[in-house]
């Protein structure tokens, strides 16, 4: 597997006190990695380092094999925390917002063409917001605003998607829709995803990697729940709900239960899958 994000012995602090110390991790192509950790451990700081907003005090960060040295990162999509709430106070339509994500394709001091408009519409369609393209973004719900912000990021056809707490401040149904879209991107479009989140219970089932930041360092956690559901999700690229039943007694297996023995009858045959 190709390493898309490489964080090598990275240390960083805004003052003399280091927030991150000798952090190491890789994210491979096609990964859906989540970064978890308590408040203040440096999750958002890590994102800023990945985006080149801040430079590491020590160590190296490479994205798609290139050293992160400036803010200009074509091929990287970034969805910030509460991205939608920022948009809420801006008098622009959803279409105008998404068009701004096409900057790298249009270029400096050039005018967008029909193909760019079509691309914006395609991105809005991808997140289920095409019918609201002429609406002011401030008139949408928090979840809808976040989906429009995601469409803006997607319009640039990113290879890597970095999301900083994208589920904060939106309702449970919107979170599910957002995660479903991300899952589809990860599986069908092969977009590598790195998401900082506190909502591991919701996001975990869609991820294949869990990176835990703690006391300035990063360690990988392999949550059974994350592994199992993601593996099954790969066999259902459209992301339909997967129900797993015992081949003997049809007892429904719990998500995250990685034993091959049925909890009900103890049958040891492999579970069968049904949609």
């Amino acid at each position: 597997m190709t390493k898309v994000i490489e964080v090598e012995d990275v240390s960083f602090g805004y003052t003399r006190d280091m927030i991150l110390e000798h952090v190491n991790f890789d994210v491979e192509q096609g990964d859906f990695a989540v970064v978890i950790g308590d408040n203040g451990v440096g999750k958002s700081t890590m994102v800023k380092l990945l985006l080149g907003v801040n430079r590491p005090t020590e160590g190296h960060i490479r994205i798609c094999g290139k050293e992160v040295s400036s803010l200009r990162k074509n091929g990287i999509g970034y969805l910030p925390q509460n991205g939608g709430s920022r948009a809420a106070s801006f008098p622009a339509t959803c279409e105008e917002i998404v068009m701004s994500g096409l900057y790298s394709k249009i270029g400096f001091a050039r005018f967008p063409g029909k193909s760019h408009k079509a691309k914006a519409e395609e991105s809005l369609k991808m997140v289920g917001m095409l019918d609201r393209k002429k609406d002011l973004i401030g008139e949408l719900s928090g979840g809808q605003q976040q989906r429009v912000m995601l469409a803006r990021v997607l319009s640039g056809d990113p290879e890597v998607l970095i999301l900083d707490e994208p589920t904060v401040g939106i309702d449970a149904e919107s979170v599910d829709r957002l995660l479903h879209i991300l899952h589809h991107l990860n599986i069908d479009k092969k977009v590598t995803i790195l998401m900082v989140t506190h909502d591991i219970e919701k996001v975990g089932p869609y991820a294949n990697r869990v990176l835990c930041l703690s006391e300035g360092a990063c360690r990988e956690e392999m949550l059974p729940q994350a592994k199992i559901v993601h593996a099954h999700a790969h066999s259902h690229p459209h992301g339909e709900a997967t129900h797993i039943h015992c081949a003997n007694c049809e007892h429904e297996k719990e998500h995250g239960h990685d034993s091959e023995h049925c909890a009900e009858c103890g049958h040891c045959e492999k579970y069968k899958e049904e949609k």
Partner: protein
Amino acid sequence: MPAILQYAYMQRALLVGLLLSVIVACLGTVMVHKRLSLIGDALSHSSLAGVAIGLLGGFNPILGAMGVCIVAAFSIEAIRKKLGNHSELAVAIVMSTGIGLAGVLSGFVRSSADFNSFLFGSIVAISGFEARLVLILAVIVLVAFVILYKELFYISFDEQAASISGVPVGVVNAIFTILTAVTVSIAARTVGALIISSLLVVPVAAAMSIARSYKTTVLWAIFVSAVSTIGGLVLSFYLGLKPGGTIVLISVVFFLLFRFLGFLRGRSMSSKGV
């Protein structure tokens, strides 16, 4: 021909007023959405220090105002970056410095009438040179605004995301800062330093009450600014009023009217977070 158009100075005032109103609305739209509504105040007050320098140095006060405005505008940008979460203080600091400097220097200016003409403007007393200056400026600002429309939109919306997408934020901000500074300093001579800051903000605020997109916000702001300016000049001519103040008051009437229309359409400024 209406009486107002029989006078060369009024023809010149109407043309200059119209050109300035259009470019001030364009710049104001960006300024308001960058959350820098008060930058016009800071620059216009700082321009008075430049006027005083020009009058004391014996050169065109507009050139003095331009120089000081450009320095003030870049100072705001520099201080804003340093202050982080308290970036709005940059405007207050530069404005205070400008007022202080203007206050001290104005004490040395012999002709207070010259200095006062920059406070409230003297659009009807504009010279041919000044009219040509405005015409050139208007062309430059409009061309820059159209060419950099999407960059300015993106930076106003989310400066960090714009940088990540490859927008040369520093260059675009520098161009915008220079154009704003030059426009404010020239507008100080026409509508007046104390009134230009209102014209940068009020037409945009009015437009935001009824516009249904960013593009229509710009167009409505231009409409309000242009009608207010022409209306203000016409009213002031026939009713013997001060043109600068009349222009601003008409734009405030537009703001109230558009707010009411926006309310009737079930929309309000508060839903936009303004």
